[in-house]
């Protein structure tokens, strides 16, 4: 063995959690703004808005995040746009997240009963008012569990940013492993850290789902 796992390494790993969390937060916030727009376009009565949104969702969902990352990071750098790893990762994950969130939220909005729309129309609310005052508050309740569940996925997906050299949890694990080569221990630890981040969220999402179902029954 070249060296042993020490407290310094553990502290280094723990610190890199912040970068994972920061990247998740950026991806989730930007992605939810984008996803909201996609959702609006997807349920719009205008065909020329609906179709491109559908195309966007379908194509992004068909491409691995890794390839999106490569396109943004390596692809653009060839043409002189040398992006910092954090920006590139944030951008790629925003695109990816917005497609998935848009689709999840569309499902929730469309699950709202049709009479809700009709009733709002009878009150002569405009389309935007209907969405804002009637549909979205109800859809929000329905969309909360899958959205939190997706947040878990976003946290896990940030591990891919290690590929383009962004030092988050996985990358920190790789760096330590390169110096002391104890992959089993280190990657178990990295996995344990991810688990500690994701498991509470998963349980929360599950609990909300159960509560919601009881309410609906």
């Amino acid at each position, binding site marked *: 063995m070249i060296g042993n796992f020490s407290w310094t390494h553990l502290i280094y790993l723990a610190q890199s959690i912040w970068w994972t969390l920061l990247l998740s937060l950026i991806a989730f916030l930007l992605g939810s703004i984008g996803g909201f727009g996609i959702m609006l376009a997807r349920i719009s009565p205008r065909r020329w808005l609906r179709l491109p949104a559908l195309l966007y969702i379908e194509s992004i*969902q068909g491409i691995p995040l*890794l390839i999106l990352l490569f396109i943004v990071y390596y692809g653009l750098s060839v043409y002189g746009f040398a992006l910092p790893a954090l920006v590139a990762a944030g951008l790629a994950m925003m695109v990816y997240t917005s497609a998935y969130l848009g689709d999840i939220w569309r499902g929730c909005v469309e699950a709202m009963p049709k009479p809700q729309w009709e009733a709002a129309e009878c009150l002569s609310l405009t389309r935007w008012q209907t969405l804002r005052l009637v549909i979205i508050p109800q859809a929000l309740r329905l969309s909360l569990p*899958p959205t939190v569940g997706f947040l878990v996925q976003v946290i896990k997906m940030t591990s891919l940013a290690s590929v383009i050299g962004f030092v988050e949890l996985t990358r920190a694990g790789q760096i330590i492993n390169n110096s002391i080569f104890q992959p089993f221990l280190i990657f178990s630890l990295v996995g344990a850290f991810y688990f500690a981040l994701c498991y509470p969220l998963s349980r929360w999402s599950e609990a909300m789902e159960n509560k919601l179902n009881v309410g609906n029954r």
Partner: protein
Amino acid sequence: MSFSLHFSDLLPYWPVFLEGAWLTLKMTGVAVVVGVSVGTLVAFAKRGRRKWLSKACSVYIDAVRNTPFLVQLFLLYFGLASLGIHMPTFAAAVLAMIINIAAYAAEIIRAGLEAVPRGQIEAAECLGLSRWRIGWHVMLQPSIEKVYPALTSQFLLMMQASAMASQISAEELTAIANTVQSDTFRSLETYIVVACLYLALSLLVKLLAWGLGEYFFRRRRAIRRAAAQAGRKQPGPAAADATVIGAGKRRTT
């Protein structure tokens, strides 16, 4: 700085790309078939009466679902190698995919099993069916029929996750893209081509899954036709359920 795309440089590489795509498809195929079989067993074991077994199954499912695939891959390939178990890259990648998809499939199938009405199982017991036949005919088949859209989207996600196998240098589509782009210095074009190939692959998988679904679940078709003949449109609540389940399942990845 000129911003023009040159795809012509990539033309000589098309057999390499196709081979990578084929390998990706093959890996996904093996992982899906074995993974779903294992997942089914895990789903039944989790519902089973043996406490320790069902506990072990939930630990496995939670552990896999709450850690990134990349870390699992590293743990399996580098970690086991340091413990003395050496695997070829492909075996490690496929094994990681199997372990991953089995956990997700188990959870999806379990949701389907939970949805089987208690009364149907009791009815089957009254008819004197054996436990195995109840498990197969009354519980498993209808629940797979119900959850197979969710399973399909899981397979698609798995196909995309296989891109990460390039990180342990298994020569699938993404790894090939990396070598091609370092050969030609046309990284943007290469990755756009590969993105299109992945899109084509996922369309293919979707088509395949749809075709298999139509073939295996003929009952669905019969129900649909009956509903159309009765003058109703598509069964409304069922369709709404499907979208909600789809949205719900997608998040669990």
